């Protein structure tokens, strides 16, 4: 990993795109105002290059999750444009297909379906893809070994530690070979050792070419990213 830098790229993404650089994520003048009137994102410009590992940090309530949700096509901006892997999400019609194939999602809690085994939890996101039932199973087994959980295939989520659960969630996020991995406080409920292991995993998939966007309020963990983007009250803080 290169030296973490705390200076965000705030130049207009359109100009950067013209300059030939390839971006995984481009937010252009994005505003998100919630129905209650809260402005969670206040004119944000942000670009993340392909293969970059970016950590977004900031105090609770500063808009980190909101930003991640927009990139994950889980919510729409009030104004501005969001482009992911070159596609404009604000005009995209099939958001389900985008979420299934373009991004992998890891949340802080409740990532797994409680009644399904570890293996089935990973397979479940591969329904409706080109993979056959057998291929889904093989892919899930392969991912489990990648996150070093081989042998726990038939455990239920409740029979796993918090760190193991998050590793299953990461395995699932990688199942459909997305180009962008999005994680919202994935280590929020973990002890420091388990948190470091999750960070090891992010570094590994990033080294394999995956773009990683990590949201965390833990500034120390964030230093393991290529670049840190600091937020404060809905704005990027220099």
């Amino acid at each position: 990993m290169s030296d973490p830098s705390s200076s965000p790229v705030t130049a207009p993404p359109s100009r950067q795109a013209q300059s030939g650089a390839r971006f995984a994520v481009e937010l252009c003048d994005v505003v998100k105002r919630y129905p209650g009137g809260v402005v969670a994102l206040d004119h944000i410009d942000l670009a993340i290059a392909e293969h970059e590992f970016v950590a977004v940090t900031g105090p609770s309530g500063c808009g980190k999750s909101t930003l991640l949700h927009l990139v994950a096509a889980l919510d729409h901006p009030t104004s501005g444009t969001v482009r992911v892997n070159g596609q404009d999400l604000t005009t995209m019609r099939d958001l389900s297909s985008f979420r299934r194939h373009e991004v992998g999602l890891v949340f802080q809690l409740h990532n797994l379906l409680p009644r399904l085994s570890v293996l089935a939890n990973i397979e479940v996101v591969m329904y409706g893809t080109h993979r056959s039932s057998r291929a889904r199973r093989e892919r899930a087994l392969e991912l489990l070994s990648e996150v070093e959980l081989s042998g726990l295939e038939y455990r239920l989520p409740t029979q796993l530690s918090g760190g193991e659960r998050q590793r299953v969630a990461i395995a699932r996020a990688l199942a459909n070979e997305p180009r962008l991995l999005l994680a919202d406080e994935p280590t929020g409920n973990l002890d420091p050792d388990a948190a470091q292991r999750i960070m090891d995993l992010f570094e590994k998939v990033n080294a394999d070419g995956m773009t990683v966007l990590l949201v965390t309020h833990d500034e120390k963990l964030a230093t393991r990213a290529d670049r840190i983007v600091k937020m404060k009250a809905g704005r990027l803080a220099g």
Partner: protein
Amino acid sequence: MPYPLFALTNLLAKKGRSLGLAAAVAFAVMIVVTLAVTSSGLEQSATAIISIAKANFAVAQKGVSDLLSSTIDASERARIAKVPGVARAVGVLVATEKINAENPVFIEIGINPSDLGPFGVTILAGHAFAADATNQCMLGWRAAANLGLHVGSKFAADGTVNTVTGIYSTGNSFGDSAAMFPLTAEQAYNRLPGIVTLVFVKVAHGYSVSAVERAIDYRLPELTTIRTASQFGRADRTLVYLKAAVTGSTILAVLIGAIIVGNTMLLSVFERTRELGLLRAVGWTRRRIVGLILTESLVLAVVGAGIGVGLSFAVSAILENVPALVGILHAHFTQGAFWRALLTALGMTIIGGLYPATRAALLAPLKALSYE
């Protein structure tokens, strides 16, 4: 894990509730199928009167409330016999009488002894009654066995004590469970001189059966020809009403079942809000969510239909033996009854599952994820 198995997992997670739902489906299916098979039993009984005879078709009065109240008088009979192509027209009077508690609707057939052969009656023991006898009768072999009577026994019926002159067979269980009397005696007892219920027509060689039927329908517009059970409605209005009642009850059962299924599925969707939201967040389409809920409904339908048909077998067997219904109600399970069971169950669960499935599909993934 194959996709349908995932749906099954959801059902198994709440075993009690799933069983309850399957039971509700089964109950509705049982009602619908029992109504259908017993009414088809009634139809079967009535149609059996027609199929006793070795005839091409029967003629009855048009628009009567039930087949046994059909009346055809002597002149009409004569006109039927004169229609070209009619080789033989056998008139029989069919009546019912309460013999004892086990036989509340015992069938009595008045027929001329000379018509027994053409009618398809084989005498197994003894001999036929005399045409002008007033206290002679023959018993079908099933009736004789059932009543414990044989040739020479006394049989109290038709307002007198009759001597059993013979035991016959028609090759038809309905006919074999009846008794036959001289036509004139039967007409006198029922105060219907010269009247018959049905005329059985045998078509002469070289004539088309349907052409002869059409000719009779045309020449005697107050009568109607009957060949099959489905044509029965033309003569028997009770059966038509009964079928309408069965259809009405079926619709009602499906609607009530759909409400129960819908209610419970809706609860199950709300309970799984976070899970369904998670699935949406990781890329499940709305259509797939609808598919999941409907697959769960489908499993319930198939299980419920199976149990319902089993229950219906049991309930019909019980109903057939209820004293007030013995000899009246016959369950008649057809392939159609099984299709009806499956359709009822499917109708119920699909109609009931549609709204919950739509609600599930419309859950906003983010709201669902933050749902507590």
